[in-house]
């Protein structure tokens, strides 16, 4: 019934099958609007990987998704479903922006960057603290509170941008543009090393931080005492109580880390791309992070790969809307939605069949 599957099936074959199903259905949608699915795939892949600037954009999106994906993944390990990545990233953007605005007259970028990162992480973490506290001590369900906090974050940020941060006398709801010292360096030079010209793509140093965050999360979850406690608490809360693991502490600490990771995401658009604070800093990445974490099985390597997939869909999708007029921007969202549906929500659809096939094969082999 539940004979364990080999790892390569569990982590490789089944996600691939899910993805194939998503693309199959998406292909039918493309067919329905009278375009060739094969061509559409070609356009997407070319748009995402075919030229330097495309790759730059793909990795730029990937960066954001890695952060928000990790944020959701860390909370998963404690059995907490943090839907609030979007709001935490938005408030994180406030932290990043305020730090840069405060220091870009005085410090070089390489000093501002860590300060801004801390600011983003701290603000994101604090935004997650209230739902965490309510869950830990009052039992208010964290799914509900974090999602509500997304709306509060959005309203709060609009108010702050309009009334506090906005440059007086201008019409646009955004902060002043950061001085060059307050901008993260682009990775154009690094990519040139690989023979790629990223052109105008906003790929920046936060991509490297995202990769470091993957390693850090991996270390945290599987190598530290705290990570052990988080996993015990997530897998069996009674055993955690038995082991003397304080549930209030673990809930709060885990959510602080999760919110902090979501907050770090803001570095990418605020300090790396736009060089100012603006409306909707999260840009949906907080929600994509949920799908990324689900698809990546809450493992940093999986998260990085799933984030790359969604980076491809975002960049390739933009290209697709441009190249094939019949496929609108909304259609691209439909395709992305199908991937989320099949890869995340319907994760267990193919599993029983695959398990049965393997049971059959295993039976024939020894005989």
């Amino acid at each position, binding site marked *: 019934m539940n004979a*364990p599957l080999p790892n390569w099936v569990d982590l490789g074959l089944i996600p691939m099958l899910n993805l194939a199903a998503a693309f199959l259905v998406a292909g039918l949608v493309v067919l329905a609007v009278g375009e060739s699915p094969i061509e559409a795939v070609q356009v997407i892949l070319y748009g995402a990987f075919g030229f330097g600037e495309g790759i730059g954009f793909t990795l730029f999106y990937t960066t954001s998704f890695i952060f928000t994906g990790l944020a959701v993944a860390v909370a998963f390990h404690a059995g907490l479903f943090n839907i609030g990545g979007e709001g935490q990233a938005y408030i994180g953007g406030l932290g990043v922006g305020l730090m840069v605005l405060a220091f870009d007259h005085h410090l070089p970028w390489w000093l501002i960057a860590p300060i801004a990162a801390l600011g983003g992480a701290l603000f994101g973490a604090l935004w997650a603290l209230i739902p965490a506290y309510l869950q830990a001590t009052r039992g208010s369900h964290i799914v509900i509170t974090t999602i509500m906090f997304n709306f509060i974050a959005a309203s709060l940020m609009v108010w702050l941008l309009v009334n506090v941060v906005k440059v007086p006398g201008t019409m646009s709801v955004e902060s002043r543009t950061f001085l060059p010292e307050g901008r993260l360096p682009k990775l154009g030079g690094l990519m040139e090393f690989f023979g790629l010209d990223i052109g105008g793509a906003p790929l920046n140093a936060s991509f490297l931080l995202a990769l470091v965050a993957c390693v850090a999360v991996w270390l945290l979850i599987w*190598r530290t*005492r705290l990570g052990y406690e988080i996993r015990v608490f997530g*897998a*069996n809360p009674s*055993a955690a109580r*038995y*082991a003397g693991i304080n549930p209030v502490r673990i809930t709060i600490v885990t959510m602080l880390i999760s919110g902090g990771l979501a907050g770090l995401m803001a570095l990418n658009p605020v300090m790396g791309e736009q060089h100012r604070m603006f409306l909707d800093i999260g840009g949906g990445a907080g929600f994509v992070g949920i799908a990324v974490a689900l698809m990546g099985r809450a493992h940093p390597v999986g998260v990085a790969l799933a984030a790359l997939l969604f980076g491809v869909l975002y960049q390739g999708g933009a290209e697709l809307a441009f190249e094939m007029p019949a496929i609108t921007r909304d259609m691209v969202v439909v395709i992305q939605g199908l991937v989320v549906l099949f890869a995340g929500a319907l994760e267990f659809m193919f599993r029983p069949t695959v398990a049965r096939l393997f049971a059959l094969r*295993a*039976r024939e082999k020894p005989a």
Partner: protein
Amino acid sequence: MPGSVRLDARAAAIELSGIDKRFGAVQANRAVDLRVEAGTIHGIVGENGAGKSTLMSILYGFYEADAGEIRLNGNLVSIPDSSAAIRLGIGMVHQHFMLVEPFTVLENVMLGVEGGRRLSAGKARARKELLTLARDYDLRVDPDAVVGDLPVGLQQRVEILKALYRGAETLILDEPTGVLTPDEADHLFRILGRLRAQGKTVLLITHKLREILAITDSVSVMRRGEMVATRRTAETSAEELAELMVGRRVLLRVDKGPARPGKVLLSVENARVVDEHGVERLRGVSLDVRAGEIVGIAGVAGNGQSELLETIAGMRPLTGGRISVGGETWEKADPAQLRLKGLAHVPEDRHRMGLVTTFLAKENAILGYHGRPAYANGMFLDREAILQASRAQMEAYDVRPPDPELKTANFSGGNQQKIVLAREITAGPEVLIVGQPTRGVDVGAIEAIHRRLIELRDAGKAILLVSVELDEVRALSDRVLVMFDGRIMGERDASADEREIGLLMSGVTGEAA
């Protein structure tokens, strides 16, 4: 198909031949033959991991055999899933019940066989059928009671009713008495007797040899995936069966010298506990456990023993009274602090508390002790040290397979319990509190676990033992306290008359009796 049943009384109700089943590298069943006569109670015994559950899962359609044949009443059948098993008249009562707790008994019984869109018609039919079953088999349960409110004994009856309602001719019971009080177990056996009298066939999986001898007509013994013997129950003995199960002679009594009690290491004074529902679970419990003695707590499950253990372990707050461990008194403590003070706790329910079953064995080897410097490297875990510790624990306690990298859920119940026990005793406690140390554990492992507890006692440690197995309490303890309704009813010598202890367990004090 039930329609083609041959009316040949001599044909076996169930006949398995040459059943093979392999999981990866593990051969769970090897060329197993089993013949069960219709209208009998047939026991299957074997250590945990011997392949009993796998064999029954094949019969019930959870697994398909790699090779071999299944015949029911002489007809070759294939059982690809459990609905096929049900159609063929096989019912199963699982060790862990498959009931919807917020539903009533009636709703649970008719679940999946509602018969049509309108619930009311099906309900009326089920209610009538339920009354008939209750009368025929002495299976009385209030059809409108909410299942979650029923004691386990009655919940089990609901499971049996479910199987019978689906037309089961053969009933498989997997460790049915593991959760029952002696009284409830007796009642279950009466029910099984009635089923047999009505011509049903019962397959009873257990490792309690006493039950086998008391109720079955014949018994088959499994060891390491093979069927090693089948005996008429009347012609065998507990000693022979134990030897067949383990493959060597087994000590069925606990061999221990007299206790040499020292100073008091654990003291509970007038402890009161009110649970989260506002019910007073402990109503002023006082007891002392001295170094070098085992104090056993006897009692029917649910009389406050679990709360007592959890309170001493620091998992529940006291609402009154005091507890001291090693001379240090506390009114509020958490399990981590108490571990540092030398209190170890083997919880009653290893799945729910003692282990994280999705973890590797080595990860469970440090549960609760993961903060110890020996396992840590700053904020990081010292993986090498943990692996070594786990390996050493597994070797010392003969955990099989001795593989620290194996997922805990893949160990048998007895071996899981050894993992818990090894962890708690290896930590070097002064006081050990143990709940149900051998629940769901096979004979060979029971012997080993009992020996470990006696060794710990002889090393001068204090042990508080809670078990619903009166035999176990009497065999291990130096003093027996009887708990009833949150109170200690009295203390008896371990050699006291069983009936006297039984009276105390039912709340009758010595003075009144």
